[in-house]
């Protein structure tokens, strides 16, 4: 369904070039939920934006490809790509708080994708908008309201409604639970899970929070410093993690606001502006060997779909 091959993305900044994604490979099968996990700055959002081809102007896709159903997204014309956006591939952005236009009623924003893609017009579109809003659990009182009148959880539901109204094949949900209280987080996870099952959506669920991801993902990819560290089914990742970084993530608990890991991993994540040679994680790794500084990202462990990029996987 989705196939990312040797993707390299960088950002030009005032202080140099930031290598946001390096040699990333990822396959997502039809109808499954892929959990994408990593600390802040590991390149998760960048991957999502690259799949939508809406990276900021200072970003550059250096090499690699992203294929959806065998079509290379990079080779599509801007017009063709625009028609895919919001219809075939939808995205729910990090920070739903600001993802809604403050001057438009909820129902109008939610039904807008139908109008853009000529699937419905006028009152008909609004009616379908209300239907989806009801489905995500928003009652009629909020349909004609403006974003500032909604709570965080309600906004997140509205944003999800907006993303699924066109019945997309692929949904990228970037940190949909970050910034919400725990009860609301669980409700949103359930909503996404039910929606995904019901409509057979291929979903990429991005989060800092590995424990939450295990509740929804069929498979999980762990990213660090723009590289894939480990990838496997959820039970493989949880029961037999092969990468020391995965082990550390499993032992970490996100804080109340959910945007920082506490009791987490000592040290700071690597900076995309100055990626060290060798294994990116080695400076924070308890199992680091001398050879890690010349590690070149050959596969360190592979068992069917379960791969880990570490030369010391046995030590875990």
């Amino acid at each position, binding site marked *: 369904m989705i196939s990312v091959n040797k993707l390299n993305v960088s950002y030009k900044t005032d202080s140099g070039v930031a290598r946001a994604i390096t040699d990333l490979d990822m396959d997502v099968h039809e109808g499954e939920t892929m959990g994408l996990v990593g600390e802040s700055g590991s390149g998760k959002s960048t991957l999502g934006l690259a799949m*939508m081809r*809406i990276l900021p102007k200072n970003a550059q896709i250096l090499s690699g490809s992203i294929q959806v159903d065998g079509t290379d997204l990079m080779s599509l014309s801007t017009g063709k790509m*625009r*028609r*895919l*956006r*919001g*219809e075939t591939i*939808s*995205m729910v*952005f990090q*920070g739903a708080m*600001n*993802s*809604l*236009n*403050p*001057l*438009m009623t909820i129902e109008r924003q939610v039904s*807008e*994708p139908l109008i*853009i*893609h000529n699937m419905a017009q006028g009152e008909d579109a609004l009616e379908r908008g209300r239907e989806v809003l009801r489905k995500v659990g928003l009652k009629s009182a909020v349909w004609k*309201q*403006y974003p*500032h*009148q909604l709570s965080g959880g309600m906004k997140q539901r509205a*944003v999800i409604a*907006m*993303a699924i109204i066109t019945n997309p094949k692929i949904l990228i949900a970037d940190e949909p639970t970050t910034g919400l209280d725990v009860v609301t987080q669980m409700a949103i996870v359930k909503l996404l899970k039910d929606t995904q099952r019901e409509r057979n959506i291929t979903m990429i669920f991005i989060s800092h929070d590995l424990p939450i991801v295990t509740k929804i993902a069929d498979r999980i990819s762990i990213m660090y410093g723009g590289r894939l560290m480990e990838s496997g089914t959820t039970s493989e990742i949880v029961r037999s993690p092969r990468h020391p970084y995965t082990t550390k993530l499993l032992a970490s608990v996100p804080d109340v606001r959910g945007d920082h890991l506490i009791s987490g991993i000592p040290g700071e994540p690597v900076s995309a502006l100055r990626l060290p040679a060798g294994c990116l994680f080695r400076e924070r790794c308890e199992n680091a060997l001398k050879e890690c500084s010349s590690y070149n990202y050959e596969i360190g462990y592979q068992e069917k779909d379960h791969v880990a990029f570490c030369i010391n996987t046995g030590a875990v």
Partner: protein
Amino acid sequence: MAAASYSTYLARRVILTVVSVFIIISFNFLLFRVLPGNPITLLYRSPRLTFNQEKALSIEFGLNRPEWVQYILYVKNALEGNFGISYYYKVSVTSKIIPALENSLILLIPATIISILLGIYTGVFSAWRENTKADVAVLQTAMAFYAMPTFWLGGIFILIAIYIGGIPVAGEYSVGSTSIINLMEHMALPLLTLVLVYYGQFTIMMRNSLRDVLSEDYILTAYAKGADSKRILYSHAVPNAMLPMISLIAINLGLMVTGAILVETVFSWPGIGYLIYQSIGHLDYPMLQGAFIIVTFSVVLANLLADIIYGLVDPRIRYR
């Protein structure tokens, strides 16, 4: 409920406006009294008034009454639009100010509307092409005009008009004419000067406001929906970018008035600015006081209007 909170907002603005009006009137009253010298001699510029003349004037202006009575009389007169008799013209100040105000508005309203529209258009053009050559060119042109002294630009236009010939450079009508064509011919140069000097600030405001909006998350959301640039700009970005413009426009209306004084003077346009300029020459204090109050009132009212519009377009104010 929602509607009630908009009326609360409106009520608050109206009260604020009324308070501002009182402060302006009171300030004028005080100013008049703290100026050195006797108000009567100040008013009549002659230190050699006889005792009887001065007494007669004191009674006419109520200066023999207690201060608070004077104040109430002053406020009452001001609210009734009664600012006394012009020293120079020997007629009521109001009868001179009203036609001058009309002439100013004939010039200022179209100038304001055109410069705002031109500013918005060029600002949108620039922001959409941020950091390209077109953006820089539009921005630098706007800033160059904005930086030009009004009287200098007006003077250049007068020189050019005289050189070409056939374009009127002074006044509102040719002698004996009242035709609208004649009015428009006379208006062309002062209007052009005002628009050029003023549109630049709106360009810069609009460009910066829109540039900020374009980096908002909801714009990214609009892209993700598959919206094309037209929809991104006109359904999502521009309406949001207009919000800060409304209050900035209101603030800048005050500056427009100063510009009007300069332009009306350069082109001898018989508006309130030209009247102020002439009254300074005549040391016509009652006229100046009246004109200042009227100008300040207009700015305060324009601000109220901006607040009302702001409340109507921003749901965050309408439904709080």
